[in-house]
């Protein structure tokens, strides 16, 4: 994944910093609550939402079950339509392919449609190492790029910024990248959008190579689909002579008709729109219309490994709508950067540890970045049971067990740093399987209750740092029950 996230601290530490940042908390609370409420209204309008959700789940599950077949069919269709298909096992291979394709055109600039796959592989950084400048054209991605920042949301990568911060970034940085921001730029949304429009227009008209991802790929026709709401994508997909699309292998759907489901559920879940503003579809190349060369780079990068896990594979259904981020109380307070990946929020917490494995500190901490409240599962338009996968990945972290990494079956060892917890859990299980042991523990707690400290040392401080402990009662319920014969002798 993107090199920009290497060396991230574990989630709790990064989240603690974010929680203390009042501006960030305010920006995120305002933005997520606004989108959350709009989405709820847009979804409530659709009488057959539950059926659409189930249909989306089934289409994705069916495709994933026969992914080999549909990918080969897609390759045939794209090739027949005049495109060239490349297969990339990992980020490095995908970056090498794209860099080579760009260099073969003789160009040193590319314009980009917003794409999660290219963020995932760190394409912009890889291109720059080879002297190729990649310009982001999505408004929010532009803000992130100009601010030398990292995306913090799948759909709204600059959600952590407010208007004032955006104005400052535009005024200060645009000139170094191309057309500067107009003099006297204010933080009015229309002015900010106009500044970006003027800046980007130059890029669109000059660029001879466009790079995109895709929301869907249709196996039967070889058609790619990009769903966006600014029109910048349409410019990048039609104006350049060469178009290179980097797409995760799980984005394939069998037929054109399958789009019927997702083009209803995706816009309402993502931006609360009834119909998506700019939906671009293209099939190979057409003489005299649009790019004359089209390359499709199919990206694995941990997806086949994820597919091998019978519980975790449902994460591959994701259509990147971000509804789970917008509804997540943890994301709202921790912010997207704490997740150490281009995929933040609940979906990121189950995707990153599967695509990258659980070996790093940040990846091993992500499955715990949730209170398991279930709000994400409730809004997911393809019914990914995120809490189920989180718990499954927690098990992988603490117990280890069989998994597939880089195509090979491996037996994972438990992650480091869980030995004390594991011992405590075993001891608790031993005591809880023995009523007498539980009772002895309860009585000990009750008899010593006046000696209990108000604040705890060690791991207990995590609780008592912000919360008082409940007082321990004089006797546990079971002693009362026995003493009073179930309350019959209440006066005793």
């Amino acid at each position, binding site marked *: 994944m993107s090199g920009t996230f290497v060396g991230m601290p574990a*989630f*709790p530490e990064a*989240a*603690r910093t974010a*929680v*203390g940042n009042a501006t960030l*908390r305010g920006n995120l609370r305002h933005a997520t609550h606004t989108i959350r409420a709009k989405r709820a209204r847009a979804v409530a309008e659709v009488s057959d939402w539950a059926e659409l959700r189930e249909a989306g789940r089934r289409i994705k599950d069916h495709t994933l079950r026969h992914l080999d077949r549909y990918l080969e069919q897609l390759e045939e269709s794209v090739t027949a339509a005049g495109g060239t298909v490349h297969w990339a096992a990992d980020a490095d291979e995908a970056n090498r392919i794209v860099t080579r394709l760009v260099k073969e055109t003789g160009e040193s600039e590319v314009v980009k449609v917003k794409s999660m796959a290219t963020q995932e592989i760190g394409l912009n950084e890889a291109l720059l190492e080879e002297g190729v400048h990649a310009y982001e054209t999505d408004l929010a991605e532009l803000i992130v790029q100009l601010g030398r920042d990292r995306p913090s949301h799948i759909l709204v990568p600059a959600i952590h910024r407010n208007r004032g911060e955006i104005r400052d970034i535009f005024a200060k940085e645009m000139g170094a990248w191309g057309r500067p921001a107009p003099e006297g730029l204010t933080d009015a949304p229309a002015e900010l959008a106009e500044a970006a429009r003027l800046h980007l227009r130059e890029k669109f008209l000059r660029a001879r190579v466009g790079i995109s991802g895709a929301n869907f790929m249709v196996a039967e026709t070889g058609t790619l689909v990009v769903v966006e709401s600014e029109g910048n994508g349409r410019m990048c997909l039609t104006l350049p002579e060469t178009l290179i699309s980097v797409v995760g292998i799980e984005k394939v759907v069998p037929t054109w008709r399958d789009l019927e489901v997702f083009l209803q559920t995706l816009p309402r879940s993502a931006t609360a729109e009834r119909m998506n503003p700019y939906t671009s579809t293209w099939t190979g190349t057409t003489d005299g219309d649009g790019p004359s060369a089209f390359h499709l780079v199919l990206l694995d990068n941990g997806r086949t490994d994820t597919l091998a896990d*019978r519980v975790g594979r449902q994460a591959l259904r994701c259509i990147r709508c971000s509804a789970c981020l917008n509804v997540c*109380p*943890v994301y709202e*307070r921790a912010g997207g950067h704490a997740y150490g990946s281009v995929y933040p929020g609940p979906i990121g917490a189950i995707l990153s540890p599967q695509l990258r494995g659980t070996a790093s500190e940040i990846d091993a901490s992500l*499955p*715990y*970045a949730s*209170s*398991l409240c*279930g*709000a994400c*599962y*409730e809004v997911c338009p393809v019914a990914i049971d995120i809490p*189920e996968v989180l*718990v499954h*990945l*927690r*098990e992988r*972290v*603490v*117990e280890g067990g069989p998994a597939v990494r880089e195509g090979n079956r491996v037996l994972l060892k438990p992650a480091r740093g869980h030995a004390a917890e*594991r011992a405590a*859990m*075993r001891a*608790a*299980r031993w005591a*809880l*399987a*023995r*009523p007498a042991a*539980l009772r002895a523990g*309860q009585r000990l*707690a009750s008899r010593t209750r006046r000696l209990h400290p108000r604040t705890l040392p060690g*791991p207990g401080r*995590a*609780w008592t*740092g*912000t*919360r*008082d*402990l*409940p007082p*321990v*009662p004089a*006797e*546990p*319920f*079971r002693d*009362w*029950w*026995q003493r009073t014969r*179930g*309350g019959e002798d209440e006066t005793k």
Partner: protein
Amino acid sequence: MRVALFLTCVNDTLYPDTGRAVVKLLTRLGVDVDFPMDQTCCGQAHYNTGYRHETEPLARHFSDVFGGYEAIVTPSGSCAAMVRELYPRLGERARAEGRGDSLARALAPVVPKTYELTEFLVDVLEVTHVGAYYPHKVTYHPTCHGLRGLGLGDRPHRLLQAVKGLELVELPGAEECCGFGGTFAVKNAAVSAAMGADKVRAAESTGASVLCAADNSCLMHLGGTMSRLHTDLRPVHIAEILASTEEEPAV
């Protein structure tokens, strides 16, 4: 009907008043309540922290203790959800690991007859007027497992609205998690505490004197936050409100 009270290990140890309230309430409604002395813990904390294999002996023990009763009632939404939703999953996973049907068969009997308290009252006993008296202004927090796991819907509200003297006020952002989340409360203490403080502030804004919920683990987190923030709110389990009468009012 022979009904077992599954009080939960947390309530048994820390909140015996909730247990006494359930016994008082159900007895008043004519239910013969038993408290099987061998009960311990459903295994929820183990399961949710990733120790599924450690959970299995606890689930088997639960089934051994409660399997013979006609209904199992618990004043905890999350423990009820553990049995109803996750015990079947324990069985499925064991089967997928090539360990046969033994665990699934052992757990199957308790799954359909485990009820969260408000479900048992409204769906099984078919009562919403339980003869309670509680002259306080109350706001209700629907905990996540009750709301999204069990789908308790408006059952707790109907029960509370029927309580004499009780003024029920709506909690803003009620459906948002309080931030407890079991071990989440200590593993991600900063985020958990921020969620808890926001929930307490929302409850405070209603002007209620009591924040009510159907799960004492969430109330332990919120109550601990309330006393640290020096609010005038008190956390009270719904069972204690429903058990309170004019003759024997809860304070």
